[in-house]
């Protein structure tokens, strides 16, 4: 379990990193926390000829308030920084809630926000949470910068809009509207494992306690984050009674997902968990929205 030979570069600025990526193109990979990339290289599943280490680019590591109550996170912000940051707890409690569910504290001390997003594991909490929160990502290459909504950024299993010469530099999250509740529920074999199924829910109420906007996004049930459009439709404009939330959960399990079976969970068990977790997540989000 040793990687094949590779060249290693250790830039200290984003511009330097971008020029290395421009030079080496498809042969190069950025190295963030290395918690996903290094094991893959040790298994020889990825054999990049060039590694561009981002760990010494201090300009990529920050958590800042954005105008209007939003948030900006640099790509190299470590999971454990996000986990313990009061601004995150205040402005993006869904992200705050997700952090302890990601791997172990050892892995969170190295792994990065940007690495998690760029890696686009369909089981990653931050992937689903970013979509549920309406997050946006800033991508930069030598030829310029562009922005993508989280809902459009993820293309499938480990696939994103990122071009080989491009870096993810920042994630932004808008302020949560008033009367908005959130919840993240998941079932994992052991607390630090990738979830068998997870669901992130964000629910906004109008002044009559009716669902104005609901976003339900699943992890580990498809090739990427899976948004429950049918279930959201069931709730739209309705008061979320227990019966209605149950119905929405059933709709999600029946119509919004097409899970596959693997060694840890059959499709039927995953569907069942989606039903259970969606109901629980909606109930909790509703409770929180009413506060």
């Amino acid at each position: 379990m040793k990687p094949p030979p590779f060249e290693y570069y250790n830039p200290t600025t984003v511009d330097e990193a971008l020029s290395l990526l421009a030079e080496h193109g498809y042969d190069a990979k950025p190295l963030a926390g290395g918690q996903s990339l290094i094991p893959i290289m040790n298994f020889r599943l990825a054999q990049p000829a060039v590694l561009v280490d981002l760990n010494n680019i201090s300009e990529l590591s920050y958590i800042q308030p954005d105008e209007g109550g939003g948030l900006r996170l640099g790509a190299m912000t470590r999971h454990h920084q996000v986990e313990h940051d009061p601004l995150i707890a205040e402005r993006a409690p869904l992200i705050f809630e997700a952090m302890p569910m990601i791997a172990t504290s050892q892995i969170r001390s190295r792994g990065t926000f940007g690495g998690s997003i760029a890696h686009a594991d369909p089981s990653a909490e931050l992937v689903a949470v970013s979509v549920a929160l309406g997050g946006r990502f800033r991508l930069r290459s030598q030829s310029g910068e562009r922005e993508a909504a989280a809902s459009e950024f993820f293309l499938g299993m480990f696939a994103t809009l990122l071009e080989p010469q491009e870096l993810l530099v920042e994630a932004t999250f808008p302020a949560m509207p008033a009367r908005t509740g959130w919840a993240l529920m998941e079932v994992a074999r052991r607390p630090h494992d990738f979830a068998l199924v997870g669901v992130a829910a964000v629910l906004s109420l109008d002044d009559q306690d009716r669902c104005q906007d609901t976003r339900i996004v699943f992890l580990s049930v498809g090739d990427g984050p899976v948004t429950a459009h049918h279930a959201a439709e069931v709730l739209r404009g309705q008061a979320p009674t227990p019966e209605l939330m149950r119905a929405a959960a059933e709709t999600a399990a029946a119509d919004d997902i097409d899970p596959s079976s693997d060694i840890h969970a059959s499709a039927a068990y995953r569907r069942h968990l989606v039903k259970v977790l969606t109901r629980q997540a909606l109930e909790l989000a509703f409770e929180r929205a009413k506060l």
Partner: protein
Amino acid sequence: MKKSIGERIKRTEDPRLLTGQALFVDDVNIPNMLHAAFLRSDYAHAYLRSVDVSEARARPGVVAVFTAEDMGDDWQPGPPLVSPPPTVEDITFYSRRQVPLAKDKVRHVGEPIAVVIAESRYIAEDAVEDILVDLDPLEVVSDIETALDPNAPLVHDDLDSNLAAHMIQSKGDYQAAKATAEVVISRKIEIDRGAAAAMENRGIVADWDSKSQHLTVWDTTQAPIPIRNGLAARLGLSESQVRVIAPFIGGAFGPKMMMFYPEEMRIPWISIQLGRAIKWIEDRRENFYATTQERRQVHEAEMLLTREGKILGVSHTFLHDSGAYDPYGLTIPLNTESHAMGAYAVPNYFSDLTVVFTNKILTTPIRGAGRPQGIFVVERLLDLAAKELEMDPVEIRKLNFIPPDAFPYEQQIIDQAFSPLIFDSGDYQPVMEKAAGMIGYDQFVKEEQPRLRAEDKHVGIGIVPFVETTGVGPYEGARITIEASGKINVATGVGTQGQGHFTAFAQVVAEQLGVDVKDVNLVTGDTAQFHWGTGTFASRGAVVAANAIHASALIVREKVLKLASKLLEAPEEELELEDGYVRVADIPHLSISLGDLAAEANPLRGAVEPGTEPGLEATAYFGPKYGAIAFGVHAMIIEVDPETMMVEIKRYVVVEDCGTVINPLILEGQIHGGVAMGIGNAYYEQLIYDENAQLLNASLADYLIPTANEVPRIEIGHFETRSPLNPLGTKGVGEAGTIPVPALFAQAIENAFPDHDLEILEMPLSPNRLFELLQEKESEK
């Protein structure tokens, strides 16, 4: 005399281990050392047409590449690891042993085909990718249940079928008993494969010094002496030319026994060929493909009872998965048989064992070693019987225990060593009662559980007794020397893999010589220090090795007393050994230190008188007549989330009777580790193979080992029934923690779903499987 045995002494080896100061095989670095990497088969079953290593040999940094062809006459299958079964009637056994590098055919994924030796492991792994191998895939024997189909492919072409062994054992007259039995419980029961998954993988460093014509081998083996002897024989060297050192080892659990793994045989051979030191450290992926596994069996099992719940008989016809080879003979399935009657007086027993070859890595004992399967079978049948008879699970067990006055109790079958299975001593009922009391069984069942059930909580309780055959022969030995410094040096042949030997064995010495355990220096697992014995396995260290150390300490004590009596001019009976001194009991200033005494015993002037020996030293051996039978009861309370199938262990109680306890702290540590492993076997750890015998979860991301999160606090009670078979009265405990856990889980989970009539007849379970089982019951409703 101050007592040392039985003291809760903290392990003296831990500061070294915990601060990274202990030597492990991978810490051995020798100038000019080379590194090895193996090319392994990707197929479970294939003809090996050709291997082209020319490109690998040409890669810069590569020193050599070997295939089976390159080994010439040195290519030979490994030796049998246990004595093959006696050729008596009723036993069929075909011996097929693992090969050093595959020739003609590969028989499991991970079987080594070629080995690259290079300046670094990185280069060696790069060169492995340069090798062109032509494998012609064959149909695969992927499971024991289809292995004997008439048209099944053959793992070994020279055999008529995949039958590895067949054997029948019986006691009483099972068929006659069945004719009169009022209750007959029959079920199919399955246990699947798991891994030992030690924290440290295997590793070996071999260093051939051509000038001194001497081979030194550092090996993660549990049995350095047999490995030395076997290596010497295979390499054409004298035993004195080979030194095997088993330094600290990060867990072993069975697969590191005297295996003569292909790598273990090849690396020393290559070191001699090249005249260079060679290191090979197994990586985690190799550990899943090339280190032995265990547990898969399928039983058609049956229990006969009276209406009152008295067991009349147990029978099981079962298949045991040997994997591709069977160097370990029948050890595991015979252990299963030794435990299939549990702790009960069973008058009639019938067992029909069939061992089959499959295209998987071979199975050899892993902590538990066939015992968890036997206990699972008998305890499951008994639970089902209790349900049918509407009896309390605790009561039906008490009714059937072997009574205390029946010991020694002859089981009338043979054990894994082909000797009669005899239970030496025990008193089972009080242990069961103690466990039930500790977990509050009656109160939970009568009050708490009904209250929680009313709150819609799915809580279940389980309580399961088990026996453990421990401390088998042949023998171990030890040499104890009192040094002039006053330190005591102890050398023994067994290796150490975390058991706390340095402390427990020191306590046995301290008990006789009246010294502090810190002044006892133990050397284990170095054949240059001690070269008689077999190794650490089968829960035998505290029985066989500790009693050898005890025997040798007694002789040294005699020598001490004799010499001190002469020097202090006092009769031996008036002397006492304390704090490193020999004193005249009532005249404390009349004393001499053990160090001074040792110096006196090794004089610089004068001759050694005929019939005497210099020094205060003795070597002694111990071999038990037969194994000592330990006993214990585990109990637990769980809560299952009926929506997610997640199981939470609320309480876990163990009461253990392993005879004399040398160090309760170490004993409890053994139990904690064993229970953790058992929890893995019950709910987490399953090796999942597909129909091509490809392992689907060959990493620790997918093969789930319980962590501190999944292992509950364990409350432990002790009970001591001394073994009459050895002077210390000890019984083994190394595997105890693991044995009853699957049976316990099954009982507790069934108990948590009283309305579902759930039957758990398989292990390991998982949330997904529990969901399926409950769905089946729902749809039956």
